[in-house]
């Protein structure tokens, strides 16, 4: 048994790709081993900006010899069969083995040296590597078929035990030498074997463990903030990104002019995070402090003073830009900004953003006036809707598009709009996909719902629904948002009514089916069964989504009990019998004499039918299920004790009629034929 080290050294790999690259390397390596009949005891992967590496332990030095036996024709089979078999096996008949009247071909496969397997596997792994984007480079790139890698590949270390595994790809020859830190170490680092890789690189100022660099950044950034009496705003995404940008991370605290704190803190945090990859800090009151933590890649010989000074200057320039936008934007009323939305196309077939705002404003107002969204005033809903997109033309959102909504909220508040309106402007994009906070403030709910409803209805009506993996207008996300708003806020309305109000109801059925589909996806996480959604939806007429889901949940609660499962089984049995019968009449007259089971079932139906109907009429779906539950024992007894297809036509007609009543009673609640199991 021995260990194997592979290092693929390149120019700087984008930080965002490193974690996935580790996984891909492990997968491709394990697949290559498995194909050769090998397996490692353990495989560990490493990534830094300049290298992707792997250590596999417990590899055998060679694969075992195997003898493969293939079954051939029987003794005495036609000669053509024998000839065909021999041709395929590449053998002559005297090389076959005969056992129990059957010929077998036996091929001995010699074991292979693991080094040979690896020498073949390494170039194959490199060529097959699934980088999100890759490039050609250098003299070889005169051909478009030349090697592609995420950035130019510089070297390969491949050591099995202490020996180099020899391979070559596009002129890059494997060896035992790598490079240390770009600035802290000059000249090559010679690796002896997998066992000394990590420590030799550490000595050359490279921490190959991604997790070790993450820990240094996480802890170091917290400590740097704490040393200044501040609290770091933790951000695991930044930890990982900085770990992907450094081989020797050194977190350091810098400051900025407190005058910049006038700018909304989200803006400061965003520019620090996105443009500069800095952490921000809070003071003891939990407010944003005028400090940041940057992560350098060197132990500078002045202790980092020049680096901190340089970073402070860069952030100051960025913040002065942001402050400029903030102050400029505050000078223009949102109503004036909104007039510029006529210049921005929403979609070429669907007019400008100003057109959309007009529609959303009417719809939001209507949602309140109709009482679908309660607790808001129609004026506030319309006002918020009219302002909600105005920040798209502000300087700040032009610079930081991800601040849309948020900035509008700030500007609305600054010009004296009510909190309800300003909050609605801020939050009306929410929820952005599953898992995002769902608004509950009534004005916000009205605007957000109107916005999503308009988007969905218009794109469907214009014949642009999502297809397959293509969803360029994020309609699936809009649908999930719409459903969450309706469910979480218990908004009661027929969906058809909502859609008609958008003025774009031409594709009603497509959109409804699409929403039901999204509902299944959305509810899957909550454990709601998709077949039960179908069972309720396919009754037709149920397009109040809140009620629909309540029914589904009641159904699921019952159907998953033993009793529910029995009732379902009984339903299926009844439905099967009825399917094969002709001229079933639920009102078929009772014969003169009834057996006990018939009587019991009829009595139970007589009682359950009105109970279920009454419960349904007040949306008491548990009550309706309870009414159905009373049928379970009589129907079981009925099937046990009665032969439905009695030779006497009158008896048969009555019994079929009873079953039809049973089926119809159940179907009032849900279409049980859609239920799986």
């Amino acid at each position, binding site marked *: 048994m021995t260990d194997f080290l592979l290092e693929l050294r390149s*120019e*700087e790999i*984008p*930080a*965002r790709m490193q974690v996935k690259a580790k996984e891909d390397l492990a997968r491709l390596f394990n697949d290559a081993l498995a194909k050769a009949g090998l397996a490692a005891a353990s495989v560990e992967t490493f990534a830094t*900006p300049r290298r992707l590496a792997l250590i596999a332990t417990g590899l055998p030095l060679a694969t075992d010899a195997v003898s493969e036996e293939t079954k051939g024709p029987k003794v005495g089979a036609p000669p053509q069969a024998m000839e065909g078999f021999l041709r395929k096996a590449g053998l002559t008949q005297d090389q076959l083995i005969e056992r129990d009247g059957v010929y077998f071909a036996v091929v001995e496969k010699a074991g292979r040296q693991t080094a040979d397997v690896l020498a073949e596997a390494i170039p194959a792994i490199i060529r097959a590597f699934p980088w999100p*984007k*890759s*490039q*050609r*480079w*250098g*003299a*070889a*790139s*005169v*051909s*478009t078929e030349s090697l592609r890698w*995420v*950035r*130019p590949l*510089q070297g390969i270390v491949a050591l099995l035990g202490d020996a180099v595994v020899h391979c070559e790809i596009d002129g890059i020859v494997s060896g035992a030498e790598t490079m240390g830190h*770009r*600035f*802290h170490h000059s000249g090559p680092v010679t690796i002896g074997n997998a066992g000394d890789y990590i420590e030799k690189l550490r000595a050359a100022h490279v921490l190959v463990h991604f997790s070790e660099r993450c820990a240094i950044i996480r802890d170091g950034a917290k400590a740097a903030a704490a040393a200044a009496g501040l609290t770091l705003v933790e951000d695991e995404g930044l930890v990982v990104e900085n770990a992907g*940008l450094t081989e020797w991370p050194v977190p350091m605290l810098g400051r900025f002019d407190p005058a910049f704190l006038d700018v909304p803190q989200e803006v400061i945090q965003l520019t620090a995070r996105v443009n*500069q990859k*800095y952490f921000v800090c809070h003071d003891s009151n939990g407010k944003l402090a005028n400090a940041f933590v*940057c992560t*350098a*890649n*060197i132990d*500078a*010989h*002045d202790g980092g003073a*020049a*680096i901190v*000074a*340089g*970073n402070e*200057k*860069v*952030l100051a*320039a960025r913040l*002065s*830009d942001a402050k*400029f936008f903030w102050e400029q934007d505050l000078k223009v009323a949102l109503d004036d900004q909104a007039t510029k939305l006529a*210049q*921005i*196309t929403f979609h*070429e077939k669907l007019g400008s953003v100003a057109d959309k705002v007009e529609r959303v404003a009417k719809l939001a107002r209507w949602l309140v006036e109709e009482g679908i969204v309660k607790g808001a005033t129609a004026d506030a809903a319309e006002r918020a809707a009219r302002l909600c997109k105005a920040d798209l033309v502000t300087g700040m959102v032009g610079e930081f598009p991800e601040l849309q909504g948020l900035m509008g909220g700030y500007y609305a508040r600054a010009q004296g709009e009510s909190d309800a309106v300003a909050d609605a402007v801020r939050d009306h994009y929410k929820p952005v996909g599953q898992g995002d906070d769902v608004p509950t403030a009534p004005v916000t709910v009205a605007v957000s719902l109107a916005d999503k409803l308009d988007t969905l209805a218009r794109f469907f009506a214009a014949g642009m629904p999502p297809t397959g993996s293509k969803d360029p207008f994020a309609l699936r996300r809009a649908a999930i948002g719409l459903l969450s708003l309706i469910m979480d806020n218990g908004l009661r309305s027929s969906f058809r009514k909502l859609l008609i109000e958008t003025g774009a109801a031409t594709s009603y059925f497509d959109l409804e089916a699409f929403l039901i589909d999204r509902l299944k996806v959305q509810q899957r996480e909550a454990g709601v069964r998709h077949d039960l959604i179908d069972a309720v939806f396919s009754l037709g007429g149920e397009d109040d989504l809140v009620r629909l889901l309540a029914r589904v949940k009641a159904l699921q609660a019952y159907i998953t009990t033993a009793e529910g499962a029995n009732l379902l089984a009984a339903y299926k049995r009844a439905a099967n019998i009825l399917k094969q019968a002709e001229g079933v009449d639920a009102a078929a007259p009772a014969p003169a004499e009834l057996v006990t089971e018939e009587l019991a079932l009829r009595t139970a139906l007589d009682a359950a039918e009105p109970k279920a109907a009454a419960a349904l009429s007040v949306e008491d779906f548990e009550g309706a299920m309870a009414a159905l539950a009373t049928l379970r024992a009589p129907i079981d007894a009925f099937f046990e004790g009665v032969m439905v297809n009695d030779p006497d036509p009158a008896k048969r007609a009555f019994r079929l009629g009873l079953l039809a009543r049973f089926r119809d009673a159940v179907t009032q609640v849900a279409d049980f034929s859609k239920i799986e199991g």
Partner: protein
Amino acid sequence: MSDVAPLSFQDLILTLHDYWGKQGCAILQPYDMEMGAGTFHTATTLRALGPDPWNAAFVQPSRRPTDGRYGENPNRLGAYYQYQVILKPSPPNLQELYLGSLKAIGIDPLLHDIRFVEDDWESPTLGAWGLGWEVWCDGMEVTQFTYFQQMGGFDCKPVSGELTYGLERLAMYIQNKDSIFDLAYNNATADRPAITYGDVFRENERQMSTYHFEVADTDMLFDAFKKATAECESCLQHALPIPAYEQAIKASHIFNILQARGVISVQERASYMGRVRDLAKGSCQAWMEKNGWAV
């Protein structure tokens, strides 16, 4: 900073010329037309095509009408200087060569944090793209570093390495100034102080901003755009890729002024850019054909 006095703006250029000249680059002069970036210089665009080796370095004055701030913003200019290096094919030690140039202009990589941060470059008007990085020095982007993969819609065979230094930013860094306009342009002598970047260019910034944002005659410019387009097409019909390409550059700059004047709507923007791209692509194709390279 180092013990020696930091380089003046002009010495920064001279030092880079000296450095890249020693690496075998032809030191060229700026292209004598208005353009938005050094990449538009034929020494980059056209020479990036075809199989012949090519190593050149030059300063390119770059005009960005929309970035003009009337000389008021300490970090923004409507016209500035790029230092371009193009090496074809990209040499295996391109990063080391580049880092050598930073040392030459006085940046110590054990005192300053130099980083290669993913930034893929794309020029929609040139139909060009490449992979590479923005190079950070203590968090400031000082250079765009790109391996060209396509130019004018054609695969680069072989790939060129392109370095674009933002000279003003580098100088601000080296001289530790907070405003572009305070940069020392030249070196003080015994009897004369150094002149500043502001002394040389501030008035240009003021007047050109006024022109681009307020005065430029848009009817004339729309007309000029059309004429440049037509002239480019005429040159292409005569199999003259270089004059055709010059007209594409001209159209691109006119489009930039129209943008600054705010008369191109969001909807129209893409279609204007598409037209410039078609001209640039057509010129690149004619250049390939003229040289007998397969397109």
